[in-house]
């Protein structure tokens, strides 16, 4: 197993970086869309009621099935993988974002409205800063989920650490299976730790 690492460290590093790239691109896109959805939900009560339900339904579709559904439209490869990951993230992010915003004490929001702040000003100057902890928590959960689901995306040629894992499964190579899963687990733990620190920082 150690031999494999010395012989193929370039492959491992390349896959890990590819994996990280998928995760980061997914995160960036997910955040933009989730932010937009959050704003929509804070303006429209109807959207706030319906959207989380729809997203949770979508979230319950297994990833392989979701890939299969999208392949006719966007083909094999990274694009399809990232689209699916972004869709999954919306549930995790929106859920946490809305919980954070709704968790802001009602009297504070009422004072803000009563003194003449617009809904947008209340959102940006009051609600957002007061719920940043749940925002970071949402991002953390979404990123860890993305790292694990992105492994499966190798099955549709999206690259990443899943490639090594699936290669190992196909050729019955334990070293490859282990390194594939170990590295993606390490990546998940690493990112989880970093974002937990960020959460602590924002707790003050």
């Amino acid at each position, binding site marked *: 197993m150690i031999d494999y690492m010395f012989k193929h460290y370039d492959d491992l590093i390349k896959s890990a970086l590819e994996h990280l790239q998928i995760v980061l691109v997914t995160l960036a896109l997910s955040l933009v869309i989730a932010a937009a959805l959050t704003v929509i939900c804070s303006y429209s009560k109807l959207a706030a009621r319906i959207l989380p339900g729809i997203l949770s339904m979508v979230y319950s579709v297994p990833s392989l099935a979701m890939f299969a559904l999208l392949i006719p439209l966007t083909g094999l490869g990274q694009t399809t993988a990232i689209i699916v990951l972004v869709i999954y993230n919306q549930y995790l992010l929106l859920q946490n974002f809305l919980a954070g915003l709704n968790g802001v*004490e009602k*009297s*504070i*929001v*009422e*004072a*803000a*409205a*009563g*003194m*003449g*702040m*617009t809904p947008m*000003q209340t959102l940006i*100057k*009051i609600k957002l*800063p*007061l719920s940043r902890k749940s925002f970071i928590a949402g991002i953390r959960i979404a990123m860890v989920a993305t790292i694990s689901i992105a492994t499966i995306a190798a099955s549709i040629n999206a690259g990443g650490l899943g490639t090594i894992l699936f290669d190992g499964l196909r050729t019955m190579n334990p070293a490859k299976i282990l390194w594939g899963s170990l590295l993606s687990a390490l990546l998940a733990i690493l990112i989880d730790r970093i974002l937990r620190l960020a959460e602590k920082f924002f707790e003050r």
Partner: protein
Amino acid sequence: MVHAIEFQNVTKAFQGSLHNAVDQINFTAEEGEFITILGSSGCGKTTLLKMINRLYEPDAGTIIVFGENISTLDPVKLRRRIGYVIQQIGLFPHMTVGDNIAMIPNLLKWEKEKTEARINQLLTMAGLAPEEFKNRYPAQLSGGQQQRVGLARALAADPKIMLLDEPFGAIDSITRTRLQDELLTLHRGMNKTFLFVTHDIEEAFKLGTRVMIMNEGHILQFDTPEEIILHPADGFVKSLVDSARAKEQFWEKFRYPREYR
């Protein structure tokens, strides 16, 4: 003469409620008056107050503020001209006392020096030394101090009308008495119209130049404290006054040592 506030046949009902929270209410308030609105919980006093800054919209009737029908005004602009203080205070916990007070001046894009001077002036007026309190966070203040800041924040943009919804309701009685006295002094110096909601009869009669007594969405009597005590409009008002008297007698008996009673 233009009234500060005028209600014309204002009615408001909440969904799922059998009777109107506020039912066909008419009254006028003049500039510089200190009006206390007295009633038990659920009598419609808070609903009435929140319709003035359009946190609630009436179902029927017209509310006129300094000659303008408020339903034709932009609610955000209207609210910036009206101070609003609530029992839970609602200070922004992530901002310093100074930044809390500066919120509306900043949104109105005042110059920095002007805002700064206003913060100092208001804190001094509220009995808090600016250099000591300006950079503190709300959590570092006592309840009474927090409500002083709440008051200062509401006064920041120099509104002509102040709406106060049981502002001292959650404050201990010693601090409360002091705050009441200071609020009276404050009001005397500024020719603003105060509307002060309370369920405490002594507070209502102590502070108000006129007292509005409400029950079940109606105004039972709206007059000076003396007039209400001398000529209660109906049985409800009379029982209210009597209950205050009974309380007074309760304290009276502690005036002399036990052996002389």
